[in-house]
């Protein structure tokens, strides 16, 4: 029974990791749009963020898998889940980046300008390292949340922890035990993510003190 549920772990990890990477990458330009000086860009960024935080992840995943998948664009369950969760993650990561940016002292921009650093250097050498450092704790706790959110992939047939638990529960009528095991797996996976984030946070804190 434990083994059966455990078979889903790679899929749970794959959905979580893929959606997080998409979101972390897409979140950057989205954050830039959200903070842009051009009103239309700013509006699009804001609208995207509010909209994608307002629609239930399950519905969005359905939209891609059943909606897009029904004749428009052949899409696998895994792809549908990753796309849906990734786009929502992008909205949330954009807000995390924005929060981190506002935590970086404005003097850093002033100093970069006064030193006549070109703007790409300001971003890459000055701002980005601090941004990563400051947003790391929030990003890590978001990743832990995403791990649990990834369970919805099971509803469209991705054979993750939740899918296997559901399958075994229905065939053995031992739901209490099976779902208990599933919950334990999720908690056990989230512990090292949190620990890793704390470790990285301390390492970076030592190097990029704010």
């Amino acid at each position, binding site marked *: 029974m434990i083994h059966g549920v455990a078979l889903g772990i790679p899929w749970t990890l794959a959905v979580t990791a893929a959606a997080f990477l998409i979101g972390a990458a897409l979140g950057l330009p989205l954050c830039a749009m959200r903070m842009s000086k051009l009103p239309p860009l700013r509006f699009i960024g804001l609208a995207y963020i509010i909209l994608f935080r307002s629609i239930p992840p399950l519905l969005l995943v359905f939209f891609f898998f059943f909606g897009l998948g029904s004749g428009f664009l052949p899409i696998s369950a895994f792809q549908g889940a990753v796309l849906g969760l990734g786009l929502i993650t992008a909205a949330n990561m954009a807000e995390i980046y924005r929060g981190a940016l506002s935590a970086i002292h404005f003097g850093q921009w002033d100093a970069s300008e006064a030193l006549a650093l070109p703007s790409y250097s300001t971003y890459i050498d000055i701002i980005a390292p601090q941004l990563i450092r400051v947003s790391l704790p929030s990003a890590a706790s978001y990743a832990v949340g995403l791990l649990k959110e990834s369970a919805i992939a099971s509803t469209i047939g991705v054979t993750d922890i939740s899918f296997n638990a559901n399958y075994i529960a229905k065939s053995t009528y031992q*739901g209490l035990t099976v779902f208990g095991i599933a919950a334990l797996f999720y908690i056990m996976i989230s512990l090292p993510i949190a620990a890793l984030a704390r470790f990285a946070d301390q390492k970076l804190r030592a190097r990029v003190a704010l």
Partner: protein
Amino acid sequence: MSDIAAFWLDSLPQLLAGLSISLQVTGAALAIGFPLGLLLALGVQSKVKAVKLPSLCLVEIGRGAPALVVLQFAYFGLPQGGLTLSAFAAAVFALAWNTGAYTSEIIRAGLESVPFGEIEAASAMGMLPRDTLRFVIIPQGLRVAAPALLGFAVAVLQATSLCFAIALPELTSNAYMIGTITFRYMEILSLAGILYAAICVPATIAVGVLEQRLGKHAL
């Protein structure tokens, strides 16, 4: 285009019926979950082990396990222990637990934001700890927590979509059902999305406004 409009109009009553159930589940889960969150916040800080440990367990499991798994646990799992819940009751059970676990952390942070000097002042005037809690700490703590609690309420409404997995005829389930019959998934899921957004977008904006207002009133 008018084809889509007609389809939406036809489907709307069923979706609204689903939305009504979504809102009922949300309301019930919050009505139980918020007070539970306050109790758990206090329980976790308790010095009495018999209170602290169970509180900690409820919080850690409620936060650590996916809401979907807790939901399936309540609906498919509890019968193994001799307790059979209706889909609605299971949904409220799971989401109230989820709400209690998460909001306990939000409320705890709120309670901890009350400046220590005020607690000290209350103590210096001979106020009992429970009076200090009731009149000084809780009212201010809840006020600080208010935006995050409203934000969580939005998350709970979204989480009701998970009840699809236990065949509760809420908004997402109903949209999916119409999809399976008509094969017009794209249109019907979009309409469901619009209905969710119609509630969640204003609420999300309200959270932002509330946060700003609260910032202004700080001493």
